[in-house]
């Protein structure tokens, strides 16, 4: 009934739609798997179960809490309400100092213990990550 051209065009449009739907689905699915959520120590304190998902924790590095040995650096992140111990083996950024803001990325082992795989670099002494500002401001 329909000409060959119409059929061809119909087929073409359908295949484009399928491709679009597939790629959107793929992007969203991958987004869900690879997104890293940001939490403050107080939010973590309310956790009841610990997912094996990568998260970010932000707050202040507690005074006199940085310790180092040849493999690891450990320190405490605080939002002045709750604290969490962080163990990290990796490179620290230049502005990683006690009393300054910090964001650590890694895995939560339990309520008080965080195994970091990355500490985020800050480039400015006055700069505080917006997440940290928010986390500190909430309290």
């Amino acid at each position, binding site marked *: 009934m329909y000409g060959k051209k119409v059929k061809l065009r119909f087929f073409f449009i359908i295949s484009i739609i399928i491709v679009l739907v597939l790629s959107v689905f793929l992007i969203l699915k991958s987004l869900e798997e690879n997104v*890293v959520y940001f939490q403050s120590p107080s939010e973590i304190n309310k956790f009841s179960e610990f997912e094996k998902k990568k998260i970010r924790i932000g707050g202040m590095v507690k005074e006199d809490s940085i310790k180092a040995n040849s493999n690891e650096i450990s320190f405490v992140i605080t939002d002045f309400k709750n604290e969490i111990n962080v163990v990290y083996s990796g*490179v620290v950024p230049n502005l990683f100092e006690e009393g300054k803001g910090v964001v650590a990325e890694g895995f939560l082992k339990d309520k008080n213990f965080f195994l970091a795989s990355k500490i985020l670099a800050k480039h400015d002494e006055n700069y505080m990550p917006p997440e940290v500002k928010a986390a500190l401001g909430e309290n």
Partner: protein
Amino acid sequence: MASLIGYYSLIVGGFLSFFIIIFSVKNFKSSETLDNRIIFFSFLQLLLVFISFLGLIISFINSDFSNETVFNHSHTTKPLLYKIAGTWGNHEGSLLLWLLVLTLFIFLFILKSKKQPTKYVILTLLFQQIIIVGFFIFILKTSSPFNYIFPVPKEGLGLNPILQDPALAIHPPILYLGYVGSSIIFSSTLSAVTLNYITKKWASHIKQWVLISWIFLTLGILLGSIWAYYELGWGGFWFWDPVENVSLMPWLALTTLIHCILVLEKRSFLTSWVVILSISTFTLSMSGTFLVRSGILNSVHTFANDPERGLYILLFLFSLIFLSLFIFFFFHKQNENFKISLSFLSKETFILINNWFMMYFLSVVLIGTIYPIFLEVILSEKISVGPPFYHKLIVPFLIPFLFFMTIGPKLKWMKSDLSKKINLIVFFIISLLVASLIVKNLKIEFLLNTILITFSFYLFFVTLSDFVSKKYKNLPQNIAHFGFSLFIISILFNNIFTTEIITNLKVGEKFESENYKIKFENLYQKDKKNFKSIIGKFKIENSQGDVEIMEPELRIYNQPNISTSEADIRTNLLSDKFITMNIVQNQEYFNIRYQTKPFMMWIWLSVLLITISGFVSFFKKKYEN
């Protein structure tokens, strides 16, 4: 004084737009030839903006702290180069640079388009003037670089030390030539759509402008990437950071645009693609500016968190998008007397397929960049999207992408069969063998890596053989595709073969592993003009017994008081050695990272090669005319 002259010439320059627009509208109605007054006033505007910019540079050189911008971003002890570079190392100055490039490009465009229809040139000028006026208002209202402070401070606040670097000194102007260059493409496309002038002739004329913009954008990204590699101390060259992504997106659009224009030039179709891509390239450049300037994305690029500025750019951006979409829907006509017959085996089909892949890559980067922003605004949930997201979604699709890139140039326009099939098959088998031999002995996922390396080598061998055998029928394409294959191969090997040691050492201590011995020999200090530097001396011995002395550095700047770490990098053709050192506060330990990074240099060289292909294409065209 220089500030004052700069300020007034900026204001006068802004008023000139008024005259240019009036003359242009008059000229457009009674158009025979281009009114000389338009050329004159455009030149005058360029001159005034240039004087204004020069005024700012002189204020920076003289450390004139009565100027607020200079006070905020300069310091008397800063070396001359960084005083000058400080001019565009801040929000206000960099916007003035935007404006300068905008006026420069439209003036050159008027001069270079004498053979084009007068109406088209005038309308392009009018569209460009809309953008120029927008920027004049933006600068004068929200971001004047010439604000006066009294009492005059004795000393400035200084420039962020990690920006005090030769590569970063020229990174912004080069990147801007690319970003702002796309404004001309935007204006001229809108003008061509309105006048129904999207033709083969127009394509070969606008191609030059696309190439210029693309060359500078590529170089600008390369410079930023090289800087990130040696200055940020992570040893990587691309972090999928939102501020990097916003420069990649216009690049992807622009690269696709070049391919579409080639098709338009030869076959006069894909007109809608050309129009949409021209609009997207410029709006992506603008949104890039919006995102990094508004303080939504936090990075070195964020100079000021002034919501008024962000709001202004956003409104301006939306009105430009609205205008261009309006023009596209109401004026754009498909060429109806021309029936397109697409045969699958043809150059244009393959280009079209890869265009779709490019659009897919672009959407991945776009979603990864703006999704966190949306989520934060709507649900106030804070997330970040990391490299795995991009790798997972982009890397597998590189395989068909590379394949079409290899075969496409082998096909003819309209319709063709594959000639020299045997060659292509032989090359594929060679690539497959080489790839599986390489991957076999490694502890990495076999299938994906083998296929990926096979197809990169395939492109590599086929383009390489073209260099040898062809009589340079299409040299720019050949160089570009060859460069891209080299780029992908270098990145793959760089990723696979990188080794890394991270340890904390005290002075005098030694780290030993199977492959390396690292000894922290000593620590010494040097005083420079505006920073103190602490240098560590490391003796590194590999398993073959080769010894290398490397000296990473920590710099403590006086103003602002910030420390940066300077990696020590030893480069040779095959591999880079990379070491950084950091203080662990209140501890005697230093945090050490030592990496070997193969083929690092080839990543830079391949991008340079891709840029060169743009130059070749640009000058080849000129020569042919």
